[in-house]
């Protein structure tokens, strides 16, 4: 099954590559037109076209790009004048660390909200939690981001507004995973600073996802609480919270996990705007500059990278759901 899913994933990625490549060459905005110097002649413009390979047919350009992909290169960025693969590899850790932290916050917040809401079912507190949940869900991540900049960055300046680390620290680490590496090195000054820089963007990304997790998990918990095994646990004298945590939660996790996988991919898409607002040097921020500059090789590389991440996350969510649910494992 895993092999089939992987093969399907690769096919999907190939489809994405074709669509993105063709679309970028059909939509308006010639990258060479943005580079034409004031006194350029026709020959100068032709030379520019040739320099970036835009003088060839779309099919020829595509074949060259496919050849680059097979050798592990994604071409050369027009605006940054560096290999696209290298650029993506250098910025990917920042986005991954941010996304993982946001996911962790979303799972913890959403899980806590679901459990508390299920425990307080029928009371006024449940309504209050549901209202708060609805607000978190209704407000998009970039609005949360702007609100946090105002509240925690300006009004009560507790957290840094921009970047990934205080420029005065800038450690000479070997990996791009600043948070992970600083923790492994027990370098808490750096770890704390990186964590502080990530907190606001991660929270902004996490809140809508937390609301979804909270809502879905709560429904699943409520359903599980009416099952026979929950009744049996109550008869045995388990407290209500123990029934939720020991009996209902495990059974409610399956559907929540599958949905979290899907929603996590949406959250990754949200990193584009949120990284921009916080000037966070990840793939999303780079993607906006790439689009503004019509940097076709970089856009192609970024879209493929995001595509690959989406496929892998969905695959991981499916595998997780199977592991958690024996009926799925045995095809039942």
């Amino acid at each position, binding site marked *: 099954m895993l092999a089939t899913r992987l093969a399907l994933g690769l096919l999907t990625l190939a489809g994405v590559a074709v669509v993105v490549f063709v679309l970028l060459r059909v939509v*308006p*905005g*010639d990258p060479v*037109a*943005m*580079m*034409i*110097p*004031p*006194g*350029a002649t026709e020959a*100068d*413009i032709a030379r520019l076209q040739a*320099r970036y390979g835009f003088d060839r047919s779309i099919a020829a350009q595509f074949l060259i790009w496919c050849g680059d992909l097979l050798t592990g290169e994604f071409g050369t960025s*027009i*605006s*940054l*004048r*560096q290999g696209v693969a290298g*650029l993506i590899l250098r*910025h990917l850790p920042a986005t991954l660390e941010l996304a993982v932290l946001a996911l962790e916050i979303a799972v913890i917040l959403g899980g806590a909200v679901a459990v508390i809401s299920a425990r307080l079912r029928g009371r006024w507190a449940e309504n209050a939690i549901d209202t708060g949940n609805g607000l978190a869900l209704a407000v998009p991540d970039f609005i949360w981001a*702007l609100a946090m*900049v*105002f509240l925690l*960055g*300006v009004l009560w*300046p*507790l*957290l*840094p*507004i*921009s*970047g*990934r*680390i*205080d*420029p*005065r620290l*800038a450690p000479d680490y070997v990996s791009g995973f600043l948070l992970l590496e600083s*923790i*492994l090195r*027990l370098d*808490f*000054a750096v*770890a*704390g*600073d990186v*964590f*502080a820089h990530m*907190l606001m963007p991660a929270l902004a990304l996490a809140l809508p996802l937390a609301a979804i997790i909270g809502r879905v998990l709560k429904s699943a918990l409520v359903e599980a609480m009416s099952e026979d095994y929950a009744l049996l646990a109550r008869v045995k004298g388990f407290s209500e919270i123990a029934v939720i945590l020991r009996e209902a939660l495990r059974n409610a996790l399956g559907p929540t996990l599958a949905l979290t996988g899907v929603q996590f991919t949406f959250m990754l898409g949200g990193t584009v705007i949120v990284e*921009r*607002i*916080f*000037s*966070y*040097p990840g793939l999303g*921020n780079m993607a*906006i*500059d790439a689009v*503004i500059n019509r940097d076709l090789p970089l856009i192609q590389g970024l879209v493929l990278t995001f595509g690959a991440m989406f496929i892998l996350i969905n695959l991981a969510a499916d595998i997780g759901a199977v592991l958690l649910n024996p009926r799925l494992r045995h095809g039942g």
Partner: protein
Amino acid sequence: MTTDAKCGPSRREILAASGAGLALSALLRPGAVLAQADDTVTIAYNVALPSWDPTVGLSAVNPTIQAIYRSVFDQFIGQGPDLSFQPGLLTAWGWNEDRTKVWMDVREGVRWQDGSPFGPEDIVWSLERAGKPETGNPIQFIWSTIGNFAIDGNRVTADVLRYEPTLFKWMAFLTAYVMPKAYYEKVGAEGFEAAPIGTGPYMVDAFERGAFLRLKSNPHYWGGEPAFKTVIFKFVPDATSRVAEVESGASDVTLEIPYEEYDRLKEKPGLHGYTTPVSDIAMIFLNDVGPMLDKNVRLAAHMSIDKRAIVDLLLSGYGEPIDTLEAPQYAAYDPTIKVPYDPDKAAALLAESGYGPDNPVRFTIQTTRGFKPKDYEMIQAIVGMWRKIGIEAEIEVYEIAKHFELRAQDKLAPAAFYNWGNAIGDPTTSTGFAMFGPSPHSVWDTEDLDAMIGPLWGEADEEKRITGWKAVDRYIAEQGYVIPLLQYVQPIIAADRVKVTPNVSGALQPAWMEKAS
């Protein structure tokens, strides 16, 4: 719980320590958010530095990036904050009598930031490299006008291959940076990108692409060590975040923020502001198609725009209305050329061509939205003004990349909003490239205008050349070939401890910043 000395801390211990350390470090750091060392100035900058080679690629022609390049590298010829030219790595320069040769005197006693000596060889190598098409210098068309260099002591001479009157002005502008010959040849392009060196007032200390740049002062700088020993450029492209940066005290200086925010922030305790007209103008290109072939329509479209009202109402008063493509700081600015705001005259002109409110002339006007301050709102206001006299314009919003594509193909709509920079203030780089038919950036292409402009490109007599360009500007105004709107004003907000010298070129140079007494 014990720790095995051989194996190091256990996973659980690491996790526990990490959690505690993280929480403490993150929560006990408000001071760190605000702290600014006396010798450090932090700038929330609006554009990220894409590449370190200031002579090639897209970033080389981005005027805003020049502030960073000018911090690390020196230009052949320097430029003051008022666009005046001054000695740089060249202390003197000029042409011979018949303009067949140029000479340049090279500054002595300068060292590269790696300690190696700088000399005339670096000047020659930089100019030769810039003039080769294969190196990808976007201003190669200027640098290739001289060649056959010779060095005699600290003097460099070269043959003029094609006379270009603005050559020395360009030596203070885009891509005119002196690069280290020996170092570049040793480390190559990739090595230079990783560890760039120049002769400028600051040296690169740390750089994280897309995030920040940390510079430290060059103690041996020939122009004297700058006031701030450390400069931090935080790359913050979002204007709201830049406002928050300076308002929270996380940055000392920022620029290019909404004028409403500028007015608010400059009144806040601990902050002050600067507004300077910069070498960047807003204009409406007219294309020689359809209704724009009618001179009455063109002039009516221009005369019916109340530019002062646009500046006052949309830009909070920050902007200078202009009637030609020359701003007051430019060499060919002529204050006597006026296109008055006169809606009655505009209506009469339209009536001559059979148009009026009941029978409006119709065309499309293209504009960006959010690319420049209030660009779309300006065009909305202009369309409203036009409607009153009998011009019905449909607004088409496009991305700036689409504008470049259409302009290169000469397929812009009859009217198209754009902005035009000219940091050397020469008429060739404003009226010239914008209005001369064969230029890939011109939109209005007619023989009458090209015939006037053509001879000026190679005019050797400077006074005659500038007078000629003024005549061109007057003719353009009379014919209504373009609608200049206003000169932009750059807003800068700074902490009270920092004194900023604004720059008409728009490049916010940290070497010109001082500590407030």
